[in-house]
């Protein structure tokens, strides 16, 4: 029997299950508005990395520039700082007709892309980025889908395989599945900070023999749902692996700004690749993804991400371009957000000190959240949480008692989904079940977002703790 048949994702593809949880959260909010009595006054939604909806404020500089770009009369007024006005003026000159309502070229506003490539070069300490290889899209998932479309031949036999982590961001799984890819799971090592062992990649690849034609490895770094930040050594091993096995590397790096311990640094795959030198640096084919949805800027609703393509066959360029071009372009406000994120105020600029203060406040909040939540999780019976260094979520393991597992089965739910339903109904906390992301068979987890205000985190932990103790007591 193939290892793939008992896939850890099997349940996550039953989209209905966790979509229903979201639907119930929505319903509960409505019921609260209508004045229905509940054991809680508010729903605490930590189900997704939706910063602004859970108390993290938008960055002032960013929003001021948006306002000035949308309504250029503000540029002539004295209501906004000088650097905001200058930035807006410059951006509008880069837009067709001086309007953010115009289409842009397919890959994005050329000057914005150019500045993004400069940011990438700076971030990666010299590994030069070519703006010609950058495509801005309505969100990084959109870019990922387009790259997958090029890679995945739905009608091929054997089918196109993609090595994917367990656990893995659920939207990526869904997207690959909808395109007709076969997911080949590789397990992250929970006991060791969710580390990626290259031997596990080898095992996964071997398991695909005779089942599908593996063509790519999808890696999320920092991870989602687990916030592991890959070590350079691990990344080098991955690069060697994809080089030897002739696989495309898909590096989802949207959480690169979410590092919250001092002993971790984010390295981009393209940087490590470049440092390894030839033959790797000029042959490994890499697509790396970034987004304005996360980090400190948290502008998820604006929908903008990019993919940077490294070492791809130049003869593919026209095809790639045409595929992206039929979608017109990324939303212009989102492109502007990407520009501001990668080119923030500098020391000496009027907005710099406020900007830095706001970033620092968010970073401190998240660091404290992670510390606090980890401590609380580890104090709860049958909950264990291994320290992670980055990302936007905590993914504690819950050893659910047999009775709970039984009850879940009776309701035709995964055990951790059952736990999340009870949590929602009894406390108003909306977290996501681990089954949505895939996990080692028999294990259960929940995913909780840490990009929230301190108050919300404290309230969340209070509600969750008392619920958990009750739940374990009643169902042991």
């Amino acid at each position, binding site marked *: 029997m193939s290892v793939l048949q*008992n896939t850890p994702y099997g349940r996550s593809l039953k989209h209905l299950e966790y979509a229903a949880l979201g639907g119930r959260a929505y319903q509960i909010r409505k019921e609260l508005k209508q004045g229905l009595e509940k054991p809680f006054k508010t729903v605490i939604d930590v189900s997704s990395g939706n910063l*602004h909806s859970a108390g993290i404020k938008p960055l002032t500089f960013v929003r001021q520039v948006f306002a000035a770009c*949308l309504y250029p009369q503000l540029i002539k007024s004295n209501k906004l700082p000088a650097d905001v006005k200058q930035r807006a003026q410059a951006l509008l000159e880069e837009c067709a007709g001086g309007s953010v*309502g115009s289409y842009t070229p397919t890959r994005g506003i050329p000057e914005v892309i150019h500045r993004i490539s400069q940011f990438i070069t700076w971030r990666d300490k010299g590994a030069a980025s070519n703006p010609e290889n950058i495509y801005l899209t309505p969100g990084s998932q*959109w870019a990922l889908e387009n790259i997958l479309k090029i890679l995945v031949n739905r009608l091929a036999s054997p089918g196109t395989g993609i090595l994917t982590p367990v656990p893995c961001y659920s939207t990526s799984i869904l997207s690959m599945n*909808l395109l007709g890819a076969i997911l080949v799971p590789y397990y992250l090592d929970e006991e060791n900070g969710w580390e990626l062992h290259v031997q596990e990649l080898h095992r996964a690849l071997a398991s695909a023999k005779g089942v599908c034609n593996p063509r790519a490895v999808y890696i999320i770094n920092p991870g989602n749902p687990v916030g592991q930040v890959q070590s350079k050594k691990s990344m080098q091993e991955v690069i060697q692996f994809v080089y030897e096995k002739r696989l495309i590397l898909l590096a989802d790096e949207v959480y690169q700004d979410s590092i919250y311990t001092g002993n971790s640094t984010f390295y981009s795959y393209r940087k490590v690749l470049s440092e390894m030198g030839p033959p790797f640096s000029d042959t490994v084919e890499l697509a790396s993804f970034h987004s304005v949805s996360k980090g400190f800027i948290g502008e998820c609703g604006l929908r903008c991400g990019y993919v940077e393509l490294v070492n791809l*066959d130049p003869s593919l360029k026209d095809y790639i371009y045409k595929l992206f071009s*039929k979608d017109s*372009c990324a939303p212009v*406000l989102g492109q502007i957000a990407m520009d501001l994120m990668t080119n923030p105020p500098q020391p000496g600029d009027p907005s710099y000190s406020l900007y830095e203060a706001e970033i620092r406040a968010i970073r401190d909040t998240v660091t404290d959240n992670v510390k606090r939540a980890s401590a609380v999780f580890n104090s709860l019976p049958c909950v264990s949480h291994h320290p992670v260094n980055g990302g936007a979520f905590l993914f504690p393991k819950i050893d659910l008692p047999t009775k709970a597992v039984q009850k879940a089965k009776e309701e035709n739910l995964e055990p951790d989904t059952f736990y999340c339903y009870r949590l929602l109904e009894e406390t108003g906390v909306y977290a996501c079940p681990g089954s949505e992301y895939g996990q080692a068979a028999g294990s259960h987890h929940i995913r909780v977002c840490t990009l929230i205000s301190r108050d919300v985190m404290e309230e969340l932990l209070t509600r969750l703790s008392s619920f958990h103790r009750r739940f374990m007591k009643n169902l042991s």
Partner: protein
Amino acid sequence: MSATRIRILSARNVLPLGRGQSGGAQRSDGDSKLRLLTSPHLSPSSPARALSSLSATRRGLPQEKMSENGMMSRAKVLTIDNMNPTVKKVEYAVRGPIVQRALELERELSEGMKKPFAEVIKANIGDAHAMGQQPITFFRQVLALCSYPELLNDNTFPEDAKSRAHRILQSCGGNSMGSYSASQGIESVRKDVALYIERRDGGMPCDPDNIYLTTGASDGIVTMLKLLVCGEGASRTGIMISIPQYPLYSAALAELGAVQINYYLNEENCWSMDINELQRALNEAREYCNPRALCIINPGNPTGQVQSRQCIEDVIRFAAKERLFLMADEVYQDNVYADGCEFHSFKKVLFEMGPEYSKSVELASFHSTSKCYMGECGFRGGYMEIINMDDEVKVQLTKLVSVRLCPPVPGQALMDLVVNPPQPGEPSYDSFLKERTATLNALAEKAKLTEQVLNTVQGISCNPVQGAMYSFPRIIIPEKAIKEAMALGQQPDMFYCMKMLEETGICLVPGSGFGQKDGTYHFRYKIPLSRIRMSFCHFKFTLQYS
């Protein structure tokens, strides 16, 4: 006709869920009704699909190749030969090679190179603001207030703009447009869209649950096509689309590996639709594919024709009789200029035809914030209204839209304003009305002028531009030019447009990018708000090649 007819788009014949679950074996009762692709094979004999027969497997591909100087270099992992074959067939003329050249020329101009023109005029794309159309002040004020709510304390903004901004922000998570919304779109916006549709359609009820906000209308159109396309070989889905058409359709169909079924609009009769032609196209297509949907763009793109109410009724009857899913692309619904022409929404006509049709015909209609009097393409705002969709298919639709996470929230906010503009008595009403009227009048005036000017030129004939934003004139290309084009491997109208670009800086899109009857040539010209400079250029070309 029975009201309990089996849906055209049902759980049994919709969107294959990839290949089944990963590895293929995890099935449970809930999935048994869903159709899954099994043992897919390409049918080499299918005439309408020229998919590459090259294997996509890695086996047998060269690991190394010789480069020019005889050095062994490593072959690429992802190549033209092993990429997804359907992606290779995607063309999108509106942003095609001629536009690339236009951008190059712009760069050269900015670097000081001398050209026979001072600026490149990008008349290739339906981008209003790029061509000088002004945004609606009220909309931009509200959006600025939503972006930076500190401005709500500013008394230079009108009160109605502020109250709108409040309302929009309250519907956003954490009162920020930067939060994800629900995948289907913000509920209060969908409710407002439904009310707009009810008002527009003379009170015909509209259920907000049938409204899906999208990333531009294109996103909605592609999503629906993804749901529709399935099957293999002779049962592969065929989608009917007008010729000429907006090339998003042909691009999406190519990428999805669907069969494109062309029905020709009648150029001699102002690009009207002819049911006989629909029937012809359908009958022929049934020989080699499974036609499942009929796409219609009204007002038309690139042709601008506005369908009569009778025509729309006839199309609905045809779709009902032939069991076709109707896709009505109505993004230009406010752009109607010609006397005697009026926009009739498919939804309205459908419901006015009574329950025999309104309870059974499956329809998706699309709208956008990119066109009309708003012209806010860069916001990527849009919606689709779905009528009579099977509930289980709706579940699949929910999955598809969730991969997008959500449509851009500023676009959703903008759509809310479009469907809910200032009302008489409100502070911003007068200026809103003035701006809107001025924009639509300018477009109408220029539409007429464009047609007139083009028709004075020998060798160009232009149908009246009844609506939308373009003219699609027919051009006579001299034999000598055709020969030269062929020698270069170019379509004659591409050759013509390239020459036009190099000599005048005007960037057009050749008719071959939209489809046209064999042996005819056209170009699509976005109606300018400034001078129309076409006439002399064509004259020179004809002179040069006669």
